[in-house]
């Protein structure tokens, strides 16, 4: 089963000066850095959609896709020591799912996929500490893909970058 077909890049959909934001976890960052060599990010042109003017790009982002909301929810789950947090449970599962796809594609070996599965299953809450990816759009504009409407939280555009290199973004902790 091949990796899903990529949506065509959208090089001119956003102004070059914009920043893309993506909230992730420390564990995801470490795994992508160690095993894949590149970072897959689902990102938004809004850091906090609620702080934007109503007409701005990303202003109507749903809370479930708003980077700062995701970041805060992760941080709150860790602060409360909530081992049943649904978002973290989802991260544990999706990390394993992606590893299976990468193994099938030959990007990692089956042994490495097993290691990732162990990491995702046994990681402590603190390894899900949130990180915010800060991605200058002009560095990646040719590779930004639009998320199909059926996969978005609402009609507001969302984007992915499937192969971010370390030199193309910063990560910050808030």
């Amino acid at each position: 089963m091949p990796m899903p077909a990529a949506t065509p890049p959208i090089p001119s959909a956003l102004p070059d000066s914009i920043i893309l934001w993506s909230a992730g976890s420390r564990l995801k960052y470490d795994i992508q850095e160690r095993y894949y060599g590149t970072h897959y990010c689902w990102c938004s042109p809004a850091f906090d959609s609620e702080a934007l003017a109503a007409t701005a790009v990303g202003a109507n982002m749903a809370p479930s896709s708003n980077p700062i909301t995701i970041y805060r929810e992760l941080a709150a789950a860790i602060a409360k020591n909530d081992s049943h947090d649904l978002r973290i449970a989802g991260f544990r599962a999706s990390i394993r799912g992606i590893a299976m796809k990468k193994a099938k594609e030959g990007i990692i070996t089956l042994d490495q996929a097993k290691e990732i599965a162990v990491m995702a299953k046994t990681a402590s809450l603190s390894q899900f500490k949130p990180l915010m990816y800060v991605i200058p759009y002009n560095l990646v504009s040719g590779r930004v893909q639009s998320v199909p409407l059926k996969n978005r939280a609402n009609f507001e555009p969302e984007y992915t970058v499937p192969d971010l290199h370390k030199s193309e973004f910063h990560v910050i902790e808030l």
Partner: protein
Amino acid sequence: MDMLNLLTELPRADALDLLGSAIIYNGTHPFDLDDAENAQVISLIRQIKDDLKISYLDRTPEASAIVSQALSDTLDSILFSSGDLDATKTRMADDGILPINGYEIQISVTSEISARIGYKALKETVINPDRIEVLVPPKTWYEDASQFNTVLYAKKMERSDVNRWIIATTLRNDFTIKVLGSFVVDLKLVGSNEYESIDSWVMNFALKYGIEFEFGEFGVAKYFHDIAIPFETARSRSDRLLSRDGIVYYEMSGHNDQATETYILFMFLVDKQLYFRDLRNRRSTKKVNRR
């Protein structure tokens, strides 16, 4: 036909791939599945939901989490054959990448200072620390300096107080993490702040409450300068060190013939009277201030 039977009809690699797709599809990942794959994934998820007595139309986060868990459990059962999980964990422990929950945590601290913190708080400090730092041994000890295994963990005692922290120092060995020493540091009392490193806290703590410092086999020194600086090394029996009411950092040797030898980075004894008095005074001051 239940889910597992459905998957056992497929080659292992295809079953794992299908489960991976189903996990991603069930979550909120933007992979756009092609029609053929979509049909298989949807069929699998429908089967799981039937097995779990969940309506196929139920897309609530709770239902999605239950389905994800079932998919992940099935994936594990196919991915790890007999003995495979242990072999993977061994390899990861050797590489130093096994997550902390993969280890057995042993609280073997005997000192009075550590005992007052409590088993539960100590374990929580190691499992869910707010800060982690690794003590890197002198590079001359190893060809590969990444083979270190002594770690400092720090956790706030209360979320609202940035000054009071539990610090635990541990040694990793195979599947075991041993908590060797621990203490509570009040950053205000030792002249530190939350933005400094844990080793700075330890150093300031030692400078205030340490009454005796030992560096290797060359006797006693009163001050030390930096944890990362390679002090002279000495060999000793760990049980003798642990019986002392001090804080001890040491590194298990991995590069010579006798793997049980212990190298002391440094150690100091604590002036308990001064330390406990200051902690008591600080607590009572805080209570007064809150009124």
